[in-house]
């Protein structure tokens, strides 16, 4: 076992509010695995999708300030739990690397040094690749015992593949699946791993989000899943907070627990407080803790 791993930590705006349980579970799990997270001091909002929709330079600059702050911390890697924030920081970082004149302009705007040495890492990637399945398995105290899990990656963890430099198979990623296996669960084979949930249209065109989210939840159910696991606060909002209205609009009434992967890890690792995180969900996820979901799902996988 190596010594402690240390990463800068960029929680992003949602993790301090609507995705609080993601932040709590992420910190708890990392601490238990010997991963030290140091929150980037005075981080700013990455700009999400609104900044680059308004102005390309603004989108890069907002992300760049955070990368500059990470460099100032003397750190090389910043772990980012939110997929959207990760995507912004990684893509902006890549653009700064590839375009020297853009980097010069942004440096000038920031009034801060920016070497380009800081790299954004998705928290999921840090856990699965750096910590590794073996160490995770060792930390499991209450294995998920065949719980059937639909691993939902969403859009921004793996796309666009060239800019993110991901090692994942972009159309059939495996990191969450590996993680679930390490926790003792059974990832189901299903085709909607990276289908969009509707993302930022959550407030403005909730009707679109309802359609897309219902499709995802129904497919997960059809493929035999007892729950869905994800790695993005926006996906979580759409699939959890908006689940009832989405399924109702689609004429369905079953319910599918949706969890952050860190919550699932916390449950499997027997971390205290794990059940409290689930209480912050909209869809009752206690079934997961009772493992009933595993027994009830006898349907054929897709």
């Amino acid at each position, binding site marked *: 076992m190596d010594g402690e791993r240390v990463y800068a930590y960029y929680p992003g705006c949602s993790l301090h509010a609507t995705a609080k349980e993601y932040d709590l579970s992420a910190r708890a799990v990392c601490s238990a695995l010997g991963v030290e997270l140091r929150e980037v001091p005075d981080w700013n909002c990455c700009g999400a999708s609104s900044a680059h929709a308004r102005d390309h330079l603004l989108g890069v600059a907002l992300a760049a300030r955070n990368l500059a702050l990470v460099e100032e911390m003397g750190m090389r890697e910043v772990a980012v739990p939110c997929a959207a924030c990760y995507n912004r920081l990684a893509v902006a970082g890549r653009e700064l690397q590839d375009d020297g004149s853009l980097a010069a302009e942004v440096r000038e705007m920031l009034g801060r040094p920016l070497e380009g040495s800081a790299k954004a890492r998705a928290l999921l990637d840090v856990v699965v690749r750096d910590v590794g399945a073996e160490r995770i398995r060792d930390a499991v105290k209450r294995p998920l015992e065949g719980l059937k899990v639909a691993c939902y990656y969403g859009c921004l963890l793996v796309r666009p593949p060239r800019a993110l430099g991901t090692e994942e*198979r*972009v*159309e*059939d990623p495996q990191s969450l699946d590996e993680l679930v296996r390490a926790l003792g669960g059974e990832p189901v084979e299903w*085709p909607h791993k990276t289908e969009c949930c509707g993302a930022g249209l959550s407030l403005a065109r909730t009707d679109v989000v309802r359609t897309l989210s219902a499709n995802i939840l129904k*497919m997960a159910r*059809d493929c035999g899943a007892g729950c869905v696991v994800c790695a993005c606060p926006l996906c979580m909002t759409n699939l959890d907070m908006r689940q009832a209205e989405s399924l109702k609009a689609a004429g369905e009434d079953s319910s599918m627990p949706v969890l952050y992967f860190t919550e699932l890890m916390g449950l499997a690792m027997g971390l205290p407080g794990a059940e409290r995180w689930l209480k912050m969900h909209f869809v009752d996820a206690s079934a997961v803790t009772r493992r009933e979901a595993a027994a009830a799902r006898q349907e*054929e996988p*897709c």
Partner: protein
Amino acid sequence: MARVGVFVCWCGSNIARTVDVQRVAEAARRIPGVVFSTDYKYMCSEPGQTMVRDAIREHRLDRVVVASCSPRLHEPTFQRCIAEAGLNPYLVEMANIREHCSWVHQDREAATEKAIDLVRMAVAKARRDFPLFRNEIPITKRALVIGGGVAGIQAALDIADAGYPVTLVERTPSIGGRMAQYDKTFPTLDCAACILTPKMVDCASHPNITILTYAEVEEVSGFVGNFTVRIRRRARGVDMEKCTGCGVCYSKCPVKVPNEFEEGMGERRAIYVPFPQAVPNVPVIDRQHCRLNNGLKCGVCQKLCPTGAIAYDQEDEVITGQFGAIVVATGFKMWDHSQIGEYGYGSIPDVISGLQFERLMNASGPTEGKIVRPSDHRPPKTVVFVACVGSRSENHGHEYCSKVCCMYTAKHALLLKEKYPDTQAYVFYMDIRANGKGYEEFVRRTIEEYGAHYIRGRVSRIYRHGDRVVVKGADTLLGRPVEIDADLVVLATAMEPQDDAKELARRLGISTDQHNWFSEAHPKLKPVEVLSSGIYLAGACQYPKDIPDTVAQASGAASKVAGLFSKPHLLSEPMIASVREEDCAACGQCVRVCPFSAIELVDVNGKNGASRRAARVNEGLCHGCGTCVAGCRGSCIDLRGFTNAQVLSEIDALALA
């Protein structure tokens, strides 16, 4: 004292529009060494050439300068012309006042001055020309054809019919290639095997053709007319003299492995013939999978063989042959669609490639010609064909078009509807490329007579849901996304060069493009030759093409070979490097830098009978590139026709003007 004649060409208006050719001719008269100068509208024409010849005789010219187009175009023309007038053909110099002057400048005054300078330089060079002579190089009148598909077969037959012996080398256990895998061919819907097997048999029975199967070319050396090729004939494990092709051995072999010929859709045994009509009809033991070879108990085939033809201990045979010409006909392979994530990474059993569908359709295929889903063997009711899978895509590494997929997709849809009229056939396409004879009509029939539904748009995603396959495409003409619940999906995957194409190119000393297709000498005018003389291309190894073009190209390559062999000997290129052996220190630098491996160090007689080494240029291999001349530390290599003195005199002429 040289007597130089200068002939300035108008080239119609190509040169004269920009260069004052009469002034150039006038100025040339004053150049030292020039005794005659004139201009004419078309120097390369018959009257123009007559003018040159007449001037040579009348003015006793012994050197000629033609100021006109690029020597690449007409140098041979004027060499022949002055030879007819009794001069050595290498005593003519071309001053390129077209491509290097009139075609790239607009300023008439400056262009004319430049043209005069170019003529001045050419005169200086011509004065230092000396007669050059071509040597005779013998030709081994035996051809090697690498690759036993329809291209190689056709080339071999044509060369053999022209009266020359041919060795046909094929890597797999039988000749036939891709065409043997096909069911029917477009647009005539001839059965592929029915039209191919007669040619295969002709090859086998032709007295001039020697077929070596299960064999590969290992090493090639030499040059046109004189290639030395080492061929490894792998051990079949079966004695070809004794085998009668009865087939008992492979009917009883206990080992089953995926059959390459069936594109993985069917099985073969460890001892096998790839398909029933194999030529030669002698099985091969796949040593990797043979139980006995892996130390397990077996020997079934040997026990059963009625003629005792099984020879487990047989070893590879290495044959070294001499050939005068080589035809490369090594064909292509299909891109592996497991690389497309959005279509399932190859993990969906009911998503297959076009070539796999071809095997399903073939009556001697894995399902005896019945179209069934690989997953559950149920006949499909809805089949979706997807064109351009991997082709025309920077995303998937092939920007090029694979040329034949539009046609074979139409063929697949037509044959499917013909066999099973109640199935629905959908074809997602971007464009229809049907530009051969009868091709457009064929596609229209598929759509209008056989009722295949053509949808203009690509497919973004294919996934499994339950036991059906969902295809998410678009119809851009309707402006809508289109989703189809299908039973079977057929992907028209891109054509690619063979995996070892680059390695073979290296062995032959020929070039490949960035995709590893073999490079022809000129895409328009020399489609069957490569830059190295004596090696020719036939078939899809050069670029995707259909059967008619392949056969035509193969015959074209064969005619080049026959043309080469019809000569009593070859004449060497005289503008090559030569070493002043008395000055050479045998440092070996030229040997190292020569791109054609045309120089070697040999023993020569030194002073007082002592033995020493010096470099010597192989006149057959040397291309006259001049790299050795530049690299020689002692300046003891010179290039005939482009000597150091000549080049320096051109520079002096320019500088001192």
